[in-house]
C-alpha cells in the first residue's frame, strides 16, 4: 500500500484546531462538514424538484383548471393560474434535471462519498481536502445558475432532461435561449465538481486505508462508492464535452447537432446516453452499497456472498458502458445495433438478480431489527425488484416499440430512482444521522414518514405501468387531447392526488431531521451496534476523526459471530487470537 498523501493539515493531532467559524463551517476542508454541506444543498433541491412534480401532476390530473396558488406565477408561466404548455415543458425538464443532477447524485455521491469514505476506511480526511472544498463550492454556483434559468426571458430549458437536439440546439424551435444556455453551463460546472470529487474518492480509497483494511475487508458501501467514482470520472467528461458542443450550437453558430447544416442529431443522443447509462448506475450503485450495510446490520448477519456482491458491483459498472443504445431502439439507428444493445442489456439482469437474492439470503435466518433505516433498506429491495422486472419489458427492443416514450418508462425510472435510490438515501440518512450530528432522529416520526412514503409512492407510481400499457405518451401537457387516452384520465387524477400526499408526507422527514438536530436524544459512539470503523469514534467525530489510527482485524459484516457473546464484532475490535496488521496497511500514520 502506498503510504504517501497524508493530508498536510491533519498530520499530527486529532484534536480540534482553533479555526474561525468561517473556516470551520463555511469554507471547511473537513470531509464531514463538506458532506453535511452537500446534504443540506441537495435536500433543498430534492424539495424543489418535488414541488415541480406536484405542479406537473396538477396539470395532468386537472388539465386546464387553475392551479391552487397558480396566481402567484407571472403571465409567462401560468396566466390566470393555468399552466402554459411551454412552462409545463420547463417543469418536465427541470424536475428531471434537478432530481438527477442536484438531488439524487449529490445525495449519494457528494454526501456519503464525502462523509463515509474516510470514516469507513480509517483515514483522517480525504487525500485532497482542498480539492474537496472546491468541489462543494463549485456545485453552489452551478445550482444558482440552474435556478436562475426560471427567471430569464424565454423561460427555462424545455427540451427534457435529455435535451434532445435539434430541439435543444436552436432557439428557433422552442423560443428558449438563455434558459437552455444556463442549463448547459450549469451542467458543465457541476460536472467539474463531480470530477474533482471522484478523483478525490478514488485516491483516498486506494491510498489512505487504515492498517489491516484490505480490499476485501472494505464495506460494500465503499466498494460501491469506489466503482461509482470511476464511472463518474469517465462518464462526466463526455457529458461536459457534449454540453459545450451544444452550447456552441446555441450561441456561436456551430452545427454539431443540426441536420440542416450538416450536423447529426443522433450524435447528441449517442453522446448523452454514453454518459447517461453509466449515470444510471452512478445513481443506483451507491444505494446498493448503503442498503447492503444496513441490511446486514438490521438482520444481524454477515452479507450473504460478500465476494459475489463485490463482483456484481464491478460487473454492473462494466456493463453500464455497453448498453446505452437501449435508450435509442426507436431512434432510427441501425436496427441490428438495436439487437446487440438488447442482448448486452439483458446481461445486466444477472448481477442485479444476484444482488437481490443475496440481500434476501442475508435476511434469511436473521434476527431482524426493524429500525427506521432497515425499513427503508427492505423497501429498497422490494421496490428495486419491481423496477428491475419492469426493465425486462423495456429491454426487449420488440415490445419497446409499443412502450417506448410512454408512462411505462416513467414508472420504471421512478421505481429505480425513487423506490430504489431515494429509499436507500432515506435509509442512509437515518442510519448515519447519529454519527453526523451526535443526536438520534425520532423513530416515531421516522416510521410515520416511512409508511406514508412507502404507501403513497406505490399508489402514485404503480398505476403508471398501466397508463403505459394503454399507450399514454410521456411528456404531454394535456392527455385529454387524445380520444384513446380519455378512459385513462381517472387514473391520471388518482396518480396526481397520490403524488400530492406523497410530497406532503415529506414534512415528517423534515421535522424529524430538524428536531433531531435541536433536541434529539444524544447518540452514543455506536447506537446501531454496527461493525464499521466510523462507530469507533465519538458522534460527531472530531476534526481528524481519530486520536490514533484504528487498526482493522476482520471483514465488515461479522454479525452473530460465534467468537463473541454479543451479536456484533466490529472491524476494530481486537480479540485474543488476532495479530496486528502489517504497519504499512494504510495511511502511513500507523
Amino acid at each position, binding site marked *: 500500500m502506498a503510504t504517501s498523501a497524508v493530508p498536510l493539515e491533519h498530520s499530527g493531532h486529532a484534536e480540534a484546531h482553533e479555526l474561525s467559524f468561517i473556516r470551520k463551517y463555511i469554507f471547511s476542508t473537513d470531509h464531514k462538514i463538506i458532506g453535511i454541506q452537500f446534504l443540506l444543498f441537495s435536500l433543498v433541491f430534492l424539495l424543489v424538484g418535488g414541488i415541480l412534480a406536484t405542479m406537473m401532476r396538477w396539470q395532468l390530473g386537472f388539465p386546464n383548471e387553475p392551479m391552487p396558488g397558480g396566481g402567484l406565477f407571472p403571465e409567462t408561466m401560468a396566466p390566470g393560474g393555468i399552466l402554459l404548455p411551454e412552462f409545463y415543458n420547463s417543469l418536465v425538464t427541470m424536475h428531471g434535471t434537478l432530481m438527477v443532477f442536484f438531488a439524487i447524485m449529490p445525495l449519494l455521491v457528494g454526501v456519503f462519498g464525502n462523509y463515509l469514505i474516510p470514516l469507513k476506511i480509517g483515514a483522517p480526511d480525504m487525500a485532497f481536502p482542498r480539492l474537496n472544498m472546491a468541489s462543494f463550492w463549485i456545485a453552489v454556483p452551478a445550482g444558482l445558475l440552474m435556478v436562475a434559468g426560471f427567471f430569464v426571458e424565454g423561460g427555462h430549458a424545455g*427540451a427534457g432532461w435529455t435535451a434532445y437536439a435539434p*430541439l435543444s440546439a436552436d432557439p428557433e424551435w422552442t423560443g428558449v435561449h438563455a434558459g437552455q444556455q444556463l442549463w448547459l453551463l450549469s451542467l458543465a460546472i457541476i460536472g467539474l465538481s463531480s470530477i474533482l470529487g471522484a478523483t478525490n474518492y478514488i485516491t483516498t480509497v486506494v491510498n489512505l486505508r487504515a492498517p489491516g483494511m484490505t480490499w476485501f475487508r472494505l464495506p460494500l458501501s465503499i466498494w460501491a462508492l469506489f466503482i461509482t467514482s470511476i464511472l463518474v470520472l469517465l462518464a462526466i467528461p463526455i457529458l461536459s464535452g457534449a454540453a459545450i458542443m451544444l452550447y456552441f450550437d446555441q450561441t456561436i453558430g456551430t452545427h454539431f447537432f443540426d441536420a440542416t447544416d450538416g450536423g447529426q442529431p443522433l450524435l447528441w443522443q449517442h453522446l448523452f446516453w454514453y454518459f447517461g447509462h453509466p449515470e444510471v448506475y452512478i445513481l443506483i450503485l451507491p444505494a446498493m452499497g448503503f442498503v447492503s450495510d444496513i441490511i446486514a446490520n438490521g438482520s444481524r448477519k454477515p452479507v450473504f456472498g460478500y465476494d459475489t456482491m463485490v463482483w456484481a458491483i464491478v460487473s454492473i459498472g462494466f456493463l453500464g458502458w455497453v448498453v446505452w443504445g437501449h435508450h435509442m431502439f426507436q431512434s432510427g439507428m441501425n436496427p*441490428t445495433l438495436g439487437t446487440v444493445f438488447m442482448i448486452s442489456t439483458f446481461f445486466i439482469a444477472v448481477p442485479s438478480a444476484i444482488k437481490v437474492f443475496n440481500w434476501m439470503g442475508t435476511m434469511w435466518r436473521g*434476527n431482524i431489527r426493524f429500525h427506521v433505516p432497515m425499513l427503508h433498506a427492505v423497501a429498497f429491495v422490494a421496490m428495486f425488484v419491481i423496477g428491475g422486472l419492469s426493465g425486462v419489458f423495456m429491454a426487449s427492443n420488440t415490445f419497446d416499440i409499443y412502450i417506448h416514450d410512454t408512462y411505462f418508462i416513467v414508472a420504471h425510472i421512478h421505481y429505480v430512482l425513487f423506490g430504489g435510490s431515494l429509499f436507500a438515501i432515506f435509509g442512509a440518512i437515518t442510519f448515519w444521522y447519529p454519527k453526523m450530528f451526535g443526536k438520534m432522529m425520532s423513530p416515531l416520526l421516522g416510521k410515520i414518514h416511512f409508511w406514508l412514503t412507502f404507501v403513497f409512492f406505490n399508489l402514485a407510481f404503480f398505476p403508471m405501468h398501466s397508463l403505459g400499457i394503454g399507450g399514454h405518451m410521456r411528456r404531454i401537457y394535456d392527455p385529454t387531447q387524445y380520444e384513446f387516452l380519455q378512459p385513462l384520465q381517472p387514473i391520471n387524477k388518482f396518480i396526481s392526488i397520490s403524488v400530492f400526499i406523497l410530497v406532503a408526507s415529506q414534512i415528517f422527514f423534515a421535522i424529524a431531521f430538524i428536531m433531531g438536530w435541536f433536541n434529539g436524544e444524544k447518540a452514543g459512539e455506536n447506537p446501531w451496534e454496527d461493525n464499521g470503523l466510523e462507530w469507533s469514534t465519538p458522534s460527531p467525530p472530531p476534526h481528524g476523526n481519530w486520536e490514533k489510527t484504528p487498526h482493522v482485524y476482520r471483514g465488515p459484516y461479522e454479525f452473530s459471530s460465534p467468537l463473541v457473546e454479543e451479536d456484533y464484532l466490529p472491524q476494530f475490535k481486537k480479540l485474543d487470537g488476532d495479530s496486528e496488521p502489517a504497519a504499512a496497511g494504510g495511511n502511513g500514520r500507523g
Partner: protein
Amino acid sequence: MSWILPEGISTFAADIDLIYYWILVITGIVFVVVEGGLLWFVIKYRARPGRKAYYIQGNTKAEIIWSAIPAVTVVFIGLWSAIIWDDIKGRDSVPEGSLAYDVRAEQFEWHFTHAGVDGTLGTADDFQLRNQLHVPVNQPVVLNATAEDVIHAFFVPALRVKQDIVPGLGAVIWFEATSTGEYEIACAELCGMGHYRMRAMLTIHTQEEYSQWLASQSPVATAE
C-alpha cells in the same frame, strides 16, 4: 388499472403482444415469489429476545443457481425478441409491393402525401393531406418519413407502430392493417410547445372504399 393491451390491428401486433404477455407471466411469477419470500422473511425472522442469527457467509451453489435462472430466461426473451424485431424493423423488412406514402412531420402537424389513383408517388395525381392518413386494409403500406425541424415520433398505438423521425436521417415505416376504422396518430417524442396536440387521424378503408375515396380526392386537394 389494466394489464391488457388495447386491441392491436396490424399483422405484427399479435407477435408483439405475445412477447408482452410472456414477459408479464414470467415477471409476474418472479414478482410473487421474490416479494412473497421477502415478506415471509420479514415476518419469520423478526428479532426475538435471546435469539442469535444464523452465522453464515454465503453459499456458492445457491448463488450459481440464482445467477443461472435469470440468465437463461433473459436469453430466451432476447432471442425471441430479436427474431420478431428483424421482421418488423430489420433493414429488409418492408414487404414488396407496399403502397408508398410520403410523410412530412413538422412542429406541430403531419403532412401525408398520398399517391393518387395510379398508386405511384411522384406523379401528377399525388395529393397531400394535413393530419389525415388514409390506407387500405390488408395491404402493406410504407411511409417514407422526413422531419422538417426537430425530432418527431410516428406513433399509432393500435398498430403497435412507433418510429422516431430524425431531421436529415428520416425513417422508413411499414405496417399492414388488419381491420378498418379510424385510429389516432400521435407524436411520441417531445418536439416543443405544441407536442401534446401533434395529433392526426388514420382511416383504414376496405379496398373498394379506398378506391372510391381516392377517386373522390381531386389533385386540387393538395392545397391544404
